[in-house]
């Protein structure tokens, strides 16, 4: 399916919950209301025409005024790709976990939590994955201050 067909299908199914769509050929995406991410993802995975069974990438991006969580989805059966985005406020970035839909999301969400501080509700095991458990701060945030030392070792 072409990106604009996927965008049209999503719009038809979810109406106002899809806030914005940009089905460009280079990088098609739709912005989804964060509260509705679970039903949208389940529809994308289970609908016969879409069958997005492969979560390719779950990225968090810190912009000045918001944090975006980008889900890049791919279908192994139909060979098409689409991206979803959720815009979250920087102070309280909370989102439902899609671990129950794609098992790959388990570790990807842990990494987004570790490096950007996005809390995924419903995650089975949300703790730091790359940095030590007693690390302070979320390094990929734009306002992150490099620590001077960690456990008496200079950084």
């Amino acid at each position, binding site marked *: 399916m072409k990106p604009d067909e996927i965008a049209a299908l999503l719009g038809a199914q979810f109406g106002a919950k899809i806030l914005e769509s940009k089905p460009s050929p280079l990088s098609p995406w739709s912005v989804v209301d964060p509260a509705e991410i679970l039903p949208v993802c389940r529809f994308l995975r289970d609908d016969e025409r879409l069958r997005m069974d492969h979560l390719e990438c779950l990225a968090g991006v810190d912009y000045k005024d918001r944090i975006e969580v980008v889900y890049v989805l791919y279908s192994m059966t139909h060979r098409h790709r689409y991206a979803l985005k959720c815009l979250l406020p920087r102070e309280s970035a909370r989102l439902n976990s899609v671990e129950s839909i794609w098992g790959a999301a388990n570790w990807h969400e842990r990494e987004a939590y570790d490096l950007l501080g996005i809390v995924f509700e419903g995650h089975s095991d949300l703790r730091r994955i*790359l940095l*030590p458990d007693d690390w302070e701060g979320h*390094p990929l945030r734009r306002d*992150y201050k*490099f620590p001077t030392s*960690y*456990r008496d*070792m*200079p*950084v």
Partner: protein
Amino acid sequence: MGVLEGKFEENVFITSVDWLFNWARSNSPWPLSFGLACCAIEMMATGAARYDLARFGAEVFRGTPRQADVMIVAGTVTMKMATRIKRLYAQMPEPKYVISMGSCSNNGGPYWQYGYHVLKGVDEVIPVDVYVPGCPPRPESLLEGLIQLQKKIRQETIAKPKGSKGAA
């Protein structure tokens, strides 16, 4: 040979014993397999058939620090790993040596500027005997580093340090 060290002044018997101990230690430095990152692949290549590390006595890479003489820190040392390195170094029995292989373990390497999780040099946590520069060092560089370590070992002595009084 901890019981013999530091007990005697320098004399002709000590020099012969020194020569024997240093010959034994320098010709069989058993490394601890401690490859962390890219330098580990070059260390494996040094141990493989073309740049044979076995001809210098470093035949067996021990899995446990308790049987190893030299720890070749090959790769980037991160904060999370640094605590483990301290423990591994403490587990090695004397005499023990450390070769810091690659620029990451020398002083942080390419990650010196924005690496919040990278330790800028393994000598922040353990004492290093030989630094081998490179990113990654060629196998010949690592062999040169090992030879320098062997030269360093051959200069050791079990005599009392000059100017000290009484038993160690």
